[in-house]
């Protein structure tokens, strides 16, 4: 029967473990061995190996075949000094290594000495033949076993259950499904974020999250490229701060002796390119806000902004629907996803991306839900007084100055703000937006870059897309009347 060799490391002080490993490397160097080989020609990925040989029968051994694979050892077990079992992980897949002294190029003594020096976490290259154990576990039987890189620190262990025998060969998290943080080998959040490489190494779900991130961005590029949008790069450092919308990072160019601000949005540069004749442009890139850090805010974050000449916000709603529903379909195989809206401890909710998305008129919906009758002229004192009263009635707190825009919602001075106080609109309208919902036709007083509505006075042609009560997109028919734009900027600065 197999004995887990955890005991070998268990109880050893981490510092002692580290020092032992350093000594062992130094000894190798001393004796003229390079412990960090330059190259190992892995001919198959682990996933390719698994796909190629998973059809073998239990007990099959293809001793004439030679395969070369490489990866990281995530577990080590032995049943005797002549037989060691390892799990080799790489690229989201894993396979068992069954190192048998009788199949090795090494003699028995060398074999035992070598394998007792191999540690969990080491990166190894294996040259060996494929086969399945009598229990039916696909394995590689090494003739040559090379340590390519050494894990000098003790890796955190999976505490629940022995080894990983119950795990599937590829237990990849699938986009759109619920998360399972209980399965994480590394649970400490601080360590996970500070040493992300450990998080990625030990928690396969996390690795899949980052692969999905990459696929999402790649999907957006493909979607926009197919519509003849051109990807451009605009400056991340500007001489003027991009408006009053968010606090920027400030830096200094020494040689030019020039103060520079990190961008908070690419909007104004992208519009200049549209003026220059690039009719459809987009930029996917980092934005920077010198603000607090919390669950949904990081000082740098990635956005996609796109601009489309000759189109209006109706066109953009359709485009947004197509982009997001198509993305969810491609990534998950359906339109419905699971999301832990109430924390990872609670069951996930379902969010349905089936197009078309619901569209609700901001003021109309607010009046309907809260049973209000807001005076039509939102610039009037009457409207302001009415809203102050409404906020008081519903116990919605609005810190001064209690302008009409602020009573309704936070003013949006550029495309993506991603922070808002829970005011009337937040309190009533956004609360009902679980499935993707367009909130449309915002008042002019809170939308300085949006074009006035072609038929509804006092409103603009603007939408925000809300999913699970969070703002995901913000879009307008762009204001392109320079005289009106100048006036709106001037009003904002008042």
């Amino acid at each position, binding site marked *: 029967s197999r004995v887990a060799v955890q005991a070998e490391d268990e109880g050893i002080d981490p510092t002692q473990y580290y020092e032992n490993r350093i000594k062992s490397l130094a000894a190798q160097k001393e004796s003229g061995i390079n412990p960090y080989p*330059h190259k190992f020609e892995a001919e198959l990925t682990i996933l390719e190996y698994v796909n190629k040989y998973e059809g073998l029968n239990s007990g099959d051994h293809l001793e004439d075949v030679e395969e070369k694979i490489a990866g990281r050892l995530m577990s080590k077990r032995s049943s005797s000094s002549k037989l060691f079992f390892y799990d080799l992980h790489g*690229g989201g897949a894993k396979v068992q290594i069954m190192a048998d002294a009788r199949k090795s190029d090494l003699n028995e003594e060398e074999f035992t000495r070598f394998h007792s020096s191999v540690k969990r976490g080491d990166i190894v290259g294996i040259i060996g033949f494929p086969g399945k154990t009598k229990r039916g576990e696909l394995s590689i039987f090494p003739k040559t076993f090379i340590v390519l890189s050494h*894990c000098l620190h003790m890796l955190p262990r999976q505490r629940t259950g022995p080894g990983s025998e119950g795990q599937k060969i590829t237990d990849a998290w699938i986009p759109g499904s619920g998360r399972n943080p209980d399965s994480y080998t590394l649970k400490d959040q601080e360590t996970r974020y500070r040493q992300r490489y450990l998080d990625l190494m030990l928690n396969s779900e996390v690795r899949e999250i980052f692969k999905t991130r990459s696929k999402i961005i790649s999907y957006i590029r493909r979607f926009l490229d197919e519509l003849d949008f051109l990807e451009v790069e605009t400056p*991340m450092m500007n001489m003027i701060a991009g408006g009053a919308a968010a*606090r920027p990072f400030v830096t*200094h160019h020494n040689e030019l002796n020039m103060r520079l601000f990190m961008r908070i949005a690419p909007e104004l540069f992208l519009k200049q390119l549209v003026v220059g*004749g690039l009719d459809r442009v987009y930029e996917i890139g980092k934005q920077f806000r010198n603000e607090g850090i919390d669950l949904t805010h990081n000082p740098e974050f990635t956005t996609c902004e796109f601009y489309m000449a000759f189109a209006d916000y109706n066109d953009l709603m359709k485009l947004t629907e197509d982009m997001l529903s198509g993305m969810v379909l491609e990534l998950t195989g359906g339109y419905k996803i699971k999301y832990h809206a109430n924390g990872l401890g609670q069951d996930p909710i379902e969010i349905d991306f089936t197009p078309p998305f619901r569209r609700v008129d901001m003021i109309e919906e607010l009046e309907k839900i809260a049973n209000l009758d807001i005076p039509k002229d939102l610039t009037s004192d009457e409207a302001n007084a009415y809203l102050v009263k409404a906020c008081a009635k519903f116990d919605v707190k609005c810190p001064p100055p209690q302008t009409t825009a602020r009573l309704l919602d936070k003013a949006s001075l550029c495309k993506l703000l991603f922070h808002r106080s829970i005011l009337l609109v937040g309190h009533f309208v956004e609360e009902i937006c679980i499935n993707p919902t367009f909130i449309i036709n915002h008042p002019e007083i809170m939308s300085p870059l949006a074009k006035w509505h072609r038929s509804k006075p006092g409103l603009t042609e603007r939408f925000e897309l809300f999913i699970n009560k969070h703002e995901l997109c913000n879009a307008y028919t762009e204001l392109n009347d320079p005289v009106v734009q100048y006036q709106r900027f001037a009003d904002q600065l008042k």
Partner: protein
Amino acid sequence: RGRASAAPSTSDREAIRAIRIKKVEELRNKGLDPYAYKWDRTHTANKLQEIYRHLGNGEELDQSDCVSISGRIVARRAFGKLAFLTLRDESGAIQLYCEKERLQSDKFEQLKTLVDIGDILGATGTIKRTDKGELSVCLTSFSLLTKSLLPLPEKYHGLTDVDKRYRQRYVDMIANPDVADIFRKRAKIISEIRKTMESAGFIEVETPVLQGAAGGAEARPFVTYHNSLGQDLYLRIATELHLKRMLVGGFEKVYEIGRIFRNEGISTRHNPEFTTIELYEAYSDYESMMNMAEELVTACALAVNGKLALDYQASYASSDIGVEICLERPWRRETMNNLVKEATGIDFANFRGDVTTAREAALKALDATGVVESDRNSVRASPSVGHVLNEVFELVVEPRLLQPTFVLDYPIEISPLAKPHRRDGGLTERFELFICGREMANAFSELTDPLDQASQIKSSRKVPSESHSKFLFLQRKRLEEQVEQHRRKDGDDDSAYEVKVDEDFLTALEYGMPPASGMGLGIDRLVMLLTNSASIRDVIAFPVLKTK
């Protein structure tokens, strides 16, 4: 003859603006919207030119076959009952043939009085080729979509004020259609790089721009301050160390295309922010990166130019004649030592660490090339044979490497992040790619031994000054010395910056990084090469400029 594209002087500008604002009012009074909401077009100008290229002179298509286009008016000639406008959109240009009797009521008068060069127009009409052979849209109706308030620059071919071109890039693009083409090619190059990387199985990741430690490099970083954390942050000068952490985390092929920042002087070759790709592949060595470099550059050349030969202007080659560059694979691969031997006859391998003899031999060889005194001084100051070799290489060989050349096996003294060469002691498995005498890429078999790495980083004395794509660590000591010197020189404490060895990166290496190779490639330089552009400002839409 109507208002031609006459040249408005600066003093006219305000007058013209006032007139046009009046026209905006006039349009509104007529119930017309000078800033329309949208326009549905059926064709682009170029599409029409393509579809109807066989239409004979004087031929006109069925009046029921209506097309709809939109774009900017860039030229106009108006006569009594006839006007010719040139409309340009992103794809190209087409003539609008405007006859009074084909337009409703006072539309022709509106066209003559209210539409100016620079306005954006939506137009519908039928297709005809004039007797003179100009494919035209015969206007049946039009809508002013955007009224422009400022006049376009003189002749629309003629924006030659270089400074203005960069400061008002949109005017540059309207006036010089070729400019927009460079940005289209830039987009295509980056897109082609992504395609090539994806088909090779690489995953694109994003690593932080703002970092807690400058990490230390030859490049001076930008410093900023995070208010709520109450802490200085530094803008990244490379993506290398975070991408390597991804390798440690189990990603086997990763890349990042992104912005890098260096707080240094600006020139036709340097902008404080620029774009690079860095890529890392587990289980491979620098041979594999050479193939990747060939693959990437040739794929981009074919995508934007359709061929592997390219003319490149002389500025790089310091002569007045352009050179033809041939990107046909395979590219020359030669060691730095052999290239220097070829150019000077000196075999630096013979010096065996004797730096004094190496310096003497180098200075003697340089006599023949007429180098300046400061260059001779940097040879005299070189602390090791490796440094002398590199100095001679940079002075004598680099400018001659016009055709694509991989320069292999750099001295260990100047390559702190590269793995020692598996055969030649004192060298590393590193290459730089040169095209047109300019470094395009820098790659190594990555150093994976954390202990070796720690000592390399802490002891390396100097890194190449032009290491554009892989911004190497400098030893802590040297950087501190540098800062100290700077302080002494300027007496200006504000300009000093903190330099640290990235201890967290060294910890990551201790968890084990697979053997790997990596490469950095400067995308702006690649775009310059493939679009025949002399200045980095020509390939960056909004470059940083000195304050006027």
